[in-house]
């Protein structure tokens, strides 16, 4: 070793003492370098033991989807990155379509830097919050300066934080497990602590994770209990008289919490959505404190259950307009009661909890409230239940829920006493017309497909749905290879392909829609199978699809 290199090595800090961003980038690199869950947990746990407290809080926030809002719009990011990389914008865009991830593309095209950054993760995130309010020139200057100096993984992490959506194959559950390993605090306790609203910019690691602070507790939901799908015949579940059935409503599963004269509404994705449904806030005046209700949020236009499509227009909006509140009001359709008079009643038998729910409903002071009960039904035999299931589409439900009368309200998904018996999906045979490359692990592979149905005189295929799932990896590879050889035209990332292959598309619901070219919206379309036995002339028409809309 030459004298010069030796001095250089001595200058760099020893590995155990590396700075914040460098450490975080090293963590991401380690997580990226293994496909094994245990190794990921070990790397994260190690990080949670060694990193500075402020960085730990931000790491928890990032891995539980609590990032600061995106400070720079992506159009600028693309322009500035291609400028720094000295390539035309179209070439950047082509590269992006192939790489399949914006932050990764930016990281790849920018010339490599050698200097690792000395700033901490917290500093970077604070700068991003600060950056949001700056002028475009200042933003550009800030980005270019940092892109130039950060090494590959730091640049990737930095850009990923800016573009948002930090999905790197680490779930919140995995992160909680690692945190539990590092702190010795039980996983369930941690999961509960990390729920609800907390601000990574202000909360300390101690207050968030260590402190037994119960002041925020009143907003916290219980873990949701989930059902397994009935496989085979429901009669295999035994004596029908042991069960209560009810419709499985097609909305957003939720918990409504009334505590301390306040109301909190949680979605199943553990997202606090209280502000999105102002019409439900009135419930806190009519439901006593110390009550938690499990129910479905449903659109209720004109006093009737609407389609999920109508609810979809409200999801994702930050502010709900007055008009929307009038046209698409939302109600709670209650399934269950988890807390009553401040007491956790999840251990009560389902029949007993339902009786409590009924009495609550009866005693509510006036009846024009956005609160309904999902009716339970008892059947004399399984055939009668099957008949009721057959009415599901008419009832605007997804099928039936079958719950054992003696069942308690459990945690997560357990096999045993709650079953869902969904209606079979609707299906239609459609022709593959367009394809786009996928993202993430499907990058560089054509896996996102658009399907068309015949018009009335069967001369033209009309786009009706997009689907991304349902084929095996092997089938995806085959279709991908076929698409590459049968491209007709390219429109940026999208290719039109020779109409040829027929796929059976399944979907859960169907409704008229102004937003779709075909005039029809389907719910959760996916590929059921590749109909290699069918010619494209045998595919269905748009009028076949229209005939499926419930009258």
């Amino acid at each position, binding site marked *: 070793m030459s004298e010069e290199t030796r001095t250089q090595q001595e200058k760099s800090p020893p590995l155990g003492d590396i700075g914040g961003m460098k450490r975080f980038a090293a963590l991401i690199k380690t997580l*990226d*370098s293994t496909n094994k869950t245990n190794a990921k947990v070990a790397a994260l746990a190690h990080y949670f033991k060694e990193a500075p407290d402020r960085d730990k809080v931000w790491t928890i926030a990032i891995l539980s989807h609590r990032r600061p809002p995106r400070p720079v719009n992506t159009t600028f990011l693309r322009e500035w990155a291609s400028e720094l990389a000295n*390539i035309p914008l179209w070439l950047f865009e082509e590269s992006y379509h192939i790489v399949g991830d914006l932050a*990764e593309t930016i990281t790849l095209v920018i010339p490599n830097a050698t200097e690792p950054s000395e700033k901490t993760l917290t500093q970077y995130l604070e700068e991003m919050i600060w950056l949001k309010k700056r002028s475009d020139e200042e933003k550009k200057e800030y980005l270019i300066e940092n892109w130039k100096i950060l090494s590959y993984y730091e640049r990737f992490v930095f850009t990923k934080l800016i573009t948002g959506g930090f999905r790197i194959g680490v779930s919140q559950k995995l992160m909680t497990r690692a945190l539990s390993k590092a702190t010795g605090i039980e996983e369930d306790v941690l999961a509960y602590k990390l729920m609800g609203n907390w601000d990574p910019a202000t909360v300390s690691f101690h207050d968030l994770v260590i402190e037994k602070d119960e002041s925020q507790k009143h907003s916290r939901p219980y873990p949701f209990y989930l059902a397994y799908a009935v496989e085979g015949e429901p009669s295999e579940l035994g004596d029908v008289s042991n069960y209560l059935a009810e419709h499985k409503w097609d909305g957003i599963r939720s918990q409504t919490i009334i505590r301390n004269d306040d109301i909190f509404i949680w979605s199943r994705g553990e997202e606090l959505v209280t502000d999105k449904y102002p019409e439900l806030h009135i419930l806190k005046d009519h439901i006593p404190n110390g009550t938690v209700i499990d129910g479905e949020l449903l659109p209720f236009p004109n006093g009737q259950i609407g389609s999920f499509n109508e609810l979809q227009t409200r999801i994702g909006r930050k502010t709900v307009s007055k008009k929307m509140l009038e046209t698409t009001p939302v109600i709670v359709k209650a399934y269950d009661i988890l807390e009553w008079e401040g007491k956790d009643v999840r251990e009560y038998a389902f029949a007993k909890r339902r009786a409590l729910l009924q009495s609550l409903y009866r005693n509510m002071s006036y009846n024009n409230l956005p609160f309904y009960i999902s009716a339970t039904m008892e059947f004399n035999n399984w055939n009668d239940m099957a008949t009721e299931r057959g009415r599901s589409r008419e009832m605007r439900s997804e099928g039936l829920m079958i719950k054992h009368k003696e069942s308690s309200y459990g945690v997560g998904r357990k096999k045993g006493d709650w079953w869902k018996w969904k209606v079979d999906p609707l299906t239609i045979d459609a022709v593959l017309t367009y394809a786009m490359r996928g993202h993430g*692990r499907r990058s560089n592979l054509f896996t996102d497909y658009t399907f068309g149905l015949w018009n009335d005189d069967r001369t033209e295929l009309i786009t009706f749905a997009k689907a991304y799932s349902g084929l095996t990896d*092997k089938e995806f590879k085959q279709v991908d290879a076929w698409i590459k*050889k*049968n491209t007709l035209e390219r429109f940026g990332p999208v290719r039109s392909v020779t109409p040829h292959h027929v796929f059976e598309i399944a979907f859960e619901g169907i409704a008229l829609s102004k937003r779709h070219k075909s005039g029809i919206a389907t719910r959760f379309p996916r590929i059921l199978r590749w109909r290699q036995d069918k010619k494209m002339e045998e595919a269905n028409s748009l009028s076949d699809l229209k005939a499926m809309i419930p009258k």
Partner: protein
Amino acid sequence: MKTPLLQFTEKGIYCAAADVYLDPWRPVDKALITHGHSDHSRWGHKQYITQNDNVPIIKHRLGDIQVSGVRFRESILINGVKFSFHPAGHIVGSSQIRVEHKGEIWVFTGDYKTENDGISTPYETVKCHTFITECTFGLPAFKWTTQAEVMNNINTWWAENKALGQTSVLFGYSLGKAQRLLKHLDTSIGKIYTHGAIEKMTEIVRQIVDLPPTELITRDTKKEDIKGNIVLAPPSTHGSTWLRKMSPFVTGSASGWMAFRGARRRRAIDKGFVLSDHCDWPALLESIEATGAEKVICTHGYTDIFSKYLRTLGYDARTEATQYEGETLDPTPTLPEGENNNSKEKSLEV
């Protein structure tokens, strides 16, 4: 209009003046072969001509064929057309083919890389008027780090795995990548085991270059002997029962495609090492410029994008359809019968 010196036909790249083909994909009488990968040296030609180092390689791969070898830079005249083979630096025995006729010079690269990998004869710039180039990694997203750095990472990875009592399984093509990795593995860490396909090819390559000793994994190889050592295996063994004997093991893959996180995750490989036997973006642009060519023809890779960019730089660049695959990301699966193929873009995109 006069016939171009080289034409792209259904059978391959054809020189009408000499009546020979370069790397043809359908059986022909006389084939000039750049290198031993199966998409460039196919079975069924009556006569093969290639550079000397490549002779034992294609003999091993194709069996009983009629092949004659020539030296690098040695000129052979066929019907008044002058052909010569020049180092392409892609794998051991790989060449570019220079074609000269009536003062006009074309060069066909086959596959190539400009970095000296310490095992293939290093790439040499050949001046020409028309340059037929691959562009497997012809996107600005591909920029390689040096081989020394990548090999250092691989050796560090191996040593770390060994310290944890795990075997390192490293995937690479049987011809080319496997020997390149082998050449630069640090034998002070442990022993190098091989899969049969790699061992056989390596035996052939040993006739041309010095390589560290390897041990073939057979039915009699003991599990405890392998532990902590490194295993070189073809990518196709990933996920197979053959790997059971190596456990506990971690997997690594050395390929240019490992530059993409998605590509690695899709394959469920633990560690990706970005190491390619093809040019990266800057190397493609630099080598094209160095040839002094005005016309550039892109044969395989991101051909449309790359030739479009070359045109913005002032080259007369276009794409021609071939059946070369470059470094494939996934083995291309065969399609069910009765596929139509009426696209203008018939070239295999990888």
